[in-house]
């Protein structure tokens, strides 16, 4: 891609690589080693509240207790599974809603398209926390939706929507929908619509044309969108905390509580390590997908 000139390896280029590289090594990669280290320690009442890796006599003191606890206590297995399943379902819902929206935007007139796109991006710039907060006011027992339903005579008593899994789904889909729509739009916008037209001229129904042409061409966008929603949703903390009930424990919240409420840093670290293993595969898939997309664009 880039052409190699004789003086490509000059000092300033090395600096331009080294500075961000070092920063990320120290503040992104190294901390993972520290989490790993602490996940093998015992909790103690001290500051910091865990045993050092090497004792006073220099002997290695590591324990697998935290992991043993994670894998034997059913609560954690259930919580991990529930987090992954909820994130996956929310991803599917985002795709279901996001695909027609992205499709509609991509096929609108250029002037309208710009405004529609701006309206998708705008909520993304407005505070995530405040967007979740907005739903608290809507879903409450005495919130806007229940007031409307009771006023319209649909129900006599408020529907319990707040503090349920339903509310978590609403929050997840609402917050992450733009992450699905934008990559989908990017692939659909580049797609040659003549192909669909040609297929239809040759007698394909619109369903057949969709599954044979639109869907395969949109695949990189579908993959990117799904992963961009799924990965952060798996470890989500704010949405289950504010909208979910006490029994709807998700792993992000368990980690947070283990760390701040129980002050069990080693266990919280072990919870984090297992969560990292869960999301590392989708992250690698995402990077492959992006690399392929850049190659194709070049």
């Amino acid at each position, binding site marked *: *891609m*880039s*052409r190699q*000139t004789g003086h*490509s390896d000059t000092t*300033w280029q090395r600096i*331009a*690589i080294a*500075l*961000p590289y070092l*920063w*990320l*090594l120290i*503040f*992104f990669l*190294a*901390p*993972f080693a*520290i*989490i790993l280290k602490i996940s093998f320690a015992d909790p103690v009442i001290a500051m910091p509240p865990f045993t050092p890796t090497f004792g006073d006599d220099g002997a290695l003191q590591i324990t697998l207790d935290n992991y043993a606890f994670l894998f034997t206590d059913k609560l954690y297995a259930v919580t991990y599974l529930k987090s992954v399943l909820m994130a996956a379902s929310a991803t599917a819902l985002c795709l279901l*809603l*996001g695909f*027609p*929206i992205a*499709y*509609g935007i991509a*096929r609108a007139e250029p002037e309208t398209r710009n405004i529609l796109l*701006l309206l*998708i991006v*705008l*909520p993304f*710039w*407005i*505070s995530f*926390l*405040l967007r979740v*907060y*907005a739903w*608290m*006011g809507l879903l409450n027992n005495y*919130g806007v939706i229940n*007031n409307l339903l009771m006023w319209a005579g649909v129900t006599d008593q408020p529907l319990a929507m707040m503090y349920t899994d339903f509310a978590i789904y609403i929050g997840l889909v*609402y917050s992450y929908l733009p992450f699905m729509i934008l990559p989908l739009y990017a692939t659909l916008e580049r797609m040659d619509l003549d192909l669909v037209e040609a297929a239809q001229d040759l007698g394909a129904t619109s369903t057949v044309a969709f599954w044979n042409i639109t869907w395969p061409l949109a695949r990189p966008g579908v993959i990117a969108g799904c992963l*961009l929603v799924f990965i*952060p949703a798996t*470890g*989500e*903390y*704010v949405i289950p*905390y*504010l909208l979910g009930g006490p029994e709807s424990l998700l792993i*992000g919240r368990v*980690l*947070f509580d283990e*760390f701040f409420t129980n002050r069990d*840093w080693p266990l919280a670290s072990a919870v*984090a390590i297992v969560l990292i293993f869960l*999301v590392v595969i989708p*992250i690698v898939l*995402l990077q492959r997908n992006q690399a392929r997309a850049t190659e194709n664009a070049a």
Partner: protein
Amino acid sequence: MKGNSRFVISVLAFGYAFLYLPLLSVIVYSFNDSQLATVWGGFSMRWYGELFKNSQIIDALMLSLKVAVSAATMATLFGTMAGVALSRFGRFRGRNLFTGMITSPMVMPEVITGLSLLLLFVSLQQLTGWPSQRGYGTITIAHTTFAMAYVAVIVQSRLAAMDESLEEAAMDLGGRPFRVMIDITLPLIAPAMLAGWLLAFTLSLDDLVIASFVSGPGGSTLPMLIFSKVKLGVTPDINALATLIMLFVSAGVVLAWAIGRRMQKA
């Protein structure tokens, strides 16, 4: 074959209503005179007045703005370097690891990023005595780390879309790579850098989870303060604060969009 089917148009209408009605309801209720956030008690601006008397909110806002400006500036500096390196320097040693470290922070669940950085700061403090307290400095470092990824991606995609012939022509005319970089490449990616700075600024202002981990006692950012109030339920003064934030952000985004369009047309 332009135009959309009725199905697509109804989904679009539903989608936009879904995105905007909740925000609209916050705005409407911010003018509610009642102390109870869900009962309409007549129109009033009193909650806006209360906001400006609340020194806690003003302090948190100031800390958030300070962090956001510093983090966005550092993220733009490092992110631009990384973006240029990835799209113009060809292959170099450790490039794959670099790409991985650039893109991962964008999707990494926030609880992991937050926990890992706090543990790093605690370990560093044990070893070196720094950082002696957590707050402005540690939050800025944390935000720089994840925001630089966004800047790098924006700069990289701008450079990928830009053809290299201008830079090549300048080099063929005898320009040294460094001069070509400063005189040709940088002006071309300046809009991307500005967009990156704005995005980094917003992301930093918006972050709750990572800041909660890496901040210390007393160092509350605006989202941290809002979260501690919101935990207890919907309150009218948060409605007013949310409305102000939404109006401010929307005005900024629409303005940036309008300027961008004018530049494209010119």
